[in-house]
C-alpha cells in the first residue's frame, strides 16, 4: 500500500533540528564553549604580546602583538572546529542516541550540514569574539575584510568536516583527543602562528612548507596586513584541497557506512 504522495525534497527541517540542537549545546556549555577559549587567547596576548612581544622587533612593519592576532584566531578556529564537530557526532554514537538520526528521513549530506554547520558557526562566532578581544590589546586593521571572512568561514567549515570525520572514526574518548592534541595542535604551533616562517633557517623553512597549517595562517594574515609567507592564491588553493579531501573521505564513509551503518 502507499500512503499518498510524499515530499521528497531536502529535509531542511531535519537539518534545522540538528543545527539548533547542537547550537543549544553551546549555550548550555557557554563557559566551556566560548568563555574559556577567549580567556586562554587573552593569556596568549599577555604572555606573547606584552611580556615577550615587547622584546621582539616589528615583523614586516607590524608590531609583534598585532602580528600574532591572525595566528591566534586560527589556533582557536582550528581546534574549536575540530573539537565541536567531533564531539557533536561522537557523543550520540557514544550514548547510542545516533539511532534516531540514522532512522530519520535525513540524508548524509543533511546530517553533515547540521553537525558541521553548527560547529563551523560556533567557531566563526568564537573567531570574531577573539578578534574583538584582540582589538582591546593591540591596534588592528584589516586590509582585505572580504578575504578575511572567506578564510575564516572556509577554514571553519573545512576543519569542522575534519572534526566530523574524527568523531566518526573515534571509538573512544582517547581517540577523540588523539589527533587534535598530538597532530593538529603541534602543526598549528609550528605553522607560523607566532612567527613568520621567513625567520626560520632555510632547512626548517623548507620543512615547514609541508605543514598545511602554514598556508591557512599565511593566507589569513595576508587578509589582515597584506603580508604572507606564501602567495595568497596558494593558501586559498591549499585550503580548498584540504576541504576537497575531507569531502572525499566523508563520501567514502557514507558510501560504505563506516562505523555508522554496519
Amino acid at each position, binding site marked *: 500500500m502507499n500512503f499518498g504522495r*510524499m515530499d521528497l525534497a531536502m529535509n531542511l*527541517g531535519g537539518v534545522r533540528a540538528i543545527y539548533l540542537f547542537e547550537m543549544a549545546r553551546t549555550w548550555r556549555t557557554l563557559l566551556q564553549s566560548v568563555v574559556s577559549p577567549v580567556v586562554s587567547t587573552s593569556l596568549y596576548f599577555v604572555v606573547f604580546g606584552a611580556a615577550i612581544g615587547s622584546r621582539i622587533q616589528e615583523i614586516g612593519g607590524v608590531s609583534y602583538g598585532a602580528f600574532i592576532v591572525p595566528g591566534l584566531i586560527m589556533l582557536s578556529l582550528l581546534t574549536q572546529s575540530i573539537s565541536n564537530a567531533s564531539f557533536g557526532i561522537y557523543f550520540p554514537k557514544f550514548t547510542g542516541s545516533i539511532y*534516531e538520526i540514522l*532512522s530519520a528521513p535525513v540524508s548524509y549530506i543533511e546530517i553533515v550540514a547540521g553537525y558541521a554547520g553548527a560547529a563551523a558557526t560556533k567557531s566563526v562566532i568564537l573567531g570574531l569574539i577573539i578578534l574583538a578581544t584582540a582589538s582591546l590589546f593591540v591596534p588592528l586593521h584589516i586590509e582585505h575584510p572580504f578575504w578575511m571572512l572567506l578564510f575564516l568561514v572556509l577554514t571553519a567549515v573545512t576543519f569542522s568536516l575534519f572534526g566530523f570525520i574524527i568523531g566518526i572514526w573515534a571509538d573512544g574518548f582517547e581517540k577523540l583527543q588523539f589527533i587534535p592534541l598530538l597532530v593538529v595542535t603541534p602543526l598549528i604551533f609550528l605553522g607560523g602562528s607566532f612567527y613568520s616562517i621567513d625567520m626560520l633557517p632555510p632547512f626548517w623553512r623548507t620543512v615547514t612548507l609541508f605543514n598545511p597549517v602554514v598556508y591557512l595562517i599565511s593566507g589569513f594574515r595576508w587578509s589582515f596586513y597584506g603580508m604572507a609567507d606564501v602567495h595568497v592564491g596558494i593558501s586559498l588553493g591549499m585550503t580548498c584541497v584540504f576541504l576537497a579531501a575531507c569531502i572525499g573521505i566523508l563520501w567514502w564513509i557514507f558510501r560504505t557506512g563506516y562505523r555508522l*551503518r554496519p
Partner: protein
Amino acid sequence: MQPVIEISGLSKTYDTGFQALKRVDLTIRQGEIFALLGPNGAGKTTLISIVCGLVRASTGTVLAGGHDIVRDYRAARRLIGLVPQELTTEAFETVWATVSFSRGLFGKPRDPALIERILRDLSLWDKKDQKIRTLSGGMKRRVLIAKALAHEPRILFLDEPTAGVDVELRRDMWRLVQRLRETGVTIILTTHYIEEAEEMADRVGVISKGEIILVEEKAELMRKMGRKQLKLHLQSPLGAVPEALAGHGLALSTDGCELVYTYDTRGERTGITSLLRDLAAAGIRFRDLQTSQSSLEDIFVGLVGERP
C-alpha cells in the same frame, strides 16, 4: 488487510562473517500488532534495524507503506517510529526539548499541542522540564516512546519495550499500544516476555538462527499447537499405571498420587470420556481433577527447542 511492510529475501551477513538473517520473507499487515519472538541472537534486532535504516541489508528488499527503504528512504522512514531496546537518550536535554527535537528531525512543523498530548499520555507532562539524566529507568523508557511518537508514525517498532520495567509501566504500555492500534498504527514488537505477546499480539512470528520459522495468527497458533493436560489427583497412590489404562498414554507422578493425561485440542475426540470410564472400571478413584492449556511460552520453547 493490506500489507504495510513487505520483506523479501532479506539476508544480513556482518563483516565478522556472522550471518544474522537468512533470506527472510515476512509481511506485516496494516493496523495489526505483530509480535516477533526469538531467543537472544536470533536476528530480531537486526531485522528491525534494517527496516528502520540502522543496518544495511546484504541482500533482499523491504517496502514500508509501498516505499523501498533504500531507494525511497525518506518516504519509508517518515512512516516509521522506533523505540530501541537500550535506554539511549541524551543526558543533559530536557524531556520537552528532546521530544521536540525528534519531531523536527522528521521535518515536521512544531506542534506543542501534540507534544503535550503525547507527554500527558505517557505520564511525562510533569517531568517535561527535567533533564533526562534525572529520570528513572522507567521514565527514560517513556521518553523513548514519546520520541518515537513525536512525528506521528504509522508503523511503530518496539524492540523489547518492557525489558526491565515495573509491572505498572508494563500495563501502561500495553494500554498505550492498544490505543495506538485503535488509531490505525501498525505495531511490531519484539519481546522476551511471551506473556506480552500473548496479551497483545494479533499475529506472532518466531525467528530462530536468522530464519522465520513460523508466522501465525496468535489464536490459531494457540489452537493448533496448544496441548491440554488433565491431571487427576488420586485418592490412593499407584505403584504403576495399570495395564488396563495403557492405551491412554498416561503419565504417573513420582509419588504415584497424580495421573496426567495429555490430549490434542485439535482432535475431534479428546478421549476423556473413555479414560474416565476405564478408570472407573479399574476401580481407580480420584479426589480432584484439573485441566491446563499450554501457554504461548510453551509453544515458543517447543518450536525453538526443536531446531538443531
